């Protein structure tokens, strides 16, 4: 990690080209898909065949690309920025987290196996299971 590289921690961890405007990370709109899993299209922010309309479309725009915080905001995802360390963390959409608790549908999550491979909890769909969160501490 150097001062020139920005690490973005969303569902995945990415290091796209970022232009910093003060504490606002600005990214190329074509990178949104890899950063957030949502692409900016004429109909809004889209993931597979689901699109979320963007009410303040001009509010996303910046001379150097799109304002990542504004995009996350439009998706209802909380953002935390450390402009000095060039780190950005973007959480799950608030509505998605809350709905999972109300609907009682087990949210999918990305974790690692002990070999360091990325795995999805949904790989065990179709089986009754106990999800046990433990720790070494």
């Amino acid at each position, binding site marked *: *990690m150097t001062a020139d590289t920005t*690490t973005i*921690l969303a*569902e995945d*961890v990415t290091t796209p080209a970022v232009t910093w405007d003060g504490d606002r990370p600005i990214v190329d709109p074509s990178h949104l898909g890899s950063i957030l899993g949502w692409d900016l299209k004429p109909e809004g922010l889209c993931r597979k065949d689901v699109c979320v309309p963007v009410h303040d479309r001009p509010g996303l725009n910046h001379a150097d690309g799109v304002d990542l915080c504004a995009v996350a905001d439009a998706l209802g995802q*909380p*953002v*935390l920025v*450390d402009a*000095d*360390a060039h*780190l950005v*963390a*973007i*959480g*799950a959409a*608030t509505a*998605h*987290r*809350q709905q*999972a*608790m*109300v609907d*009682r*549908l*087990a*949210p999918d*999550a*990305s*974790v*690692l*196996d*002990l070999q*360091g491979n990325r*795995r999805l*909890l*949904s790989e*065990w*769909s*179709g*089986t*009754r*299971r*106990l*999800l*046990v*969160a*433990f*720790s*070494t*501490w």
Partner: protein
Amino acid sequence: MADENFTVIAVALDENLAAVAPFAENITYPVLVDTEHQMSELYAITNVPTVVWIDEDDRIVRPNAMEPGSDMFTEFTGIKCEGHMEQVRTWIRNGILPDDADHEVQALDPDEVTAHLHFRLATHARRGGLADAAERHFAAASELAPNDFTIVRGAMPLTGVNPFGAAFFELYGRFQEAGSPYHGIPRART
């Protein structure tokens, strides 16, 4: 119960895969690691061990509950493990859920969510050699979620603090004084 379309999925809320590996020795079910604290954020897991029962259709049939795998800490926590194992067997074999299964868990509140984001930034800053940023974000996370063990205690081994020492007992005392807040089924001491 391995032949009954049932499995345990153990997920460590840890950062160091090598530290978790010994826990997986001689264990036949999957052992995974939530290095990014994504699972704990989505499931509102604020302490360990937390167990969630999920059926074959991905429904949470019994939400977050503190369920130890042994009675090693029963004197401390007041929770025994055999009752839970019996409840699990009854669910798997007869489809009967315990009375507390319909408890509605509150999602993390905005401060707790921000605490998770700070924690995630801190672990990445630490890995990237940005010690000052790591320290700052670990501190901010613990301040925003002072009773979340996955944050406050989870940060201890990453900041050179003994997670079994005085800092832990300080956290535990504060947690009890706050009424033992937990996102899940409340437990009475047995």
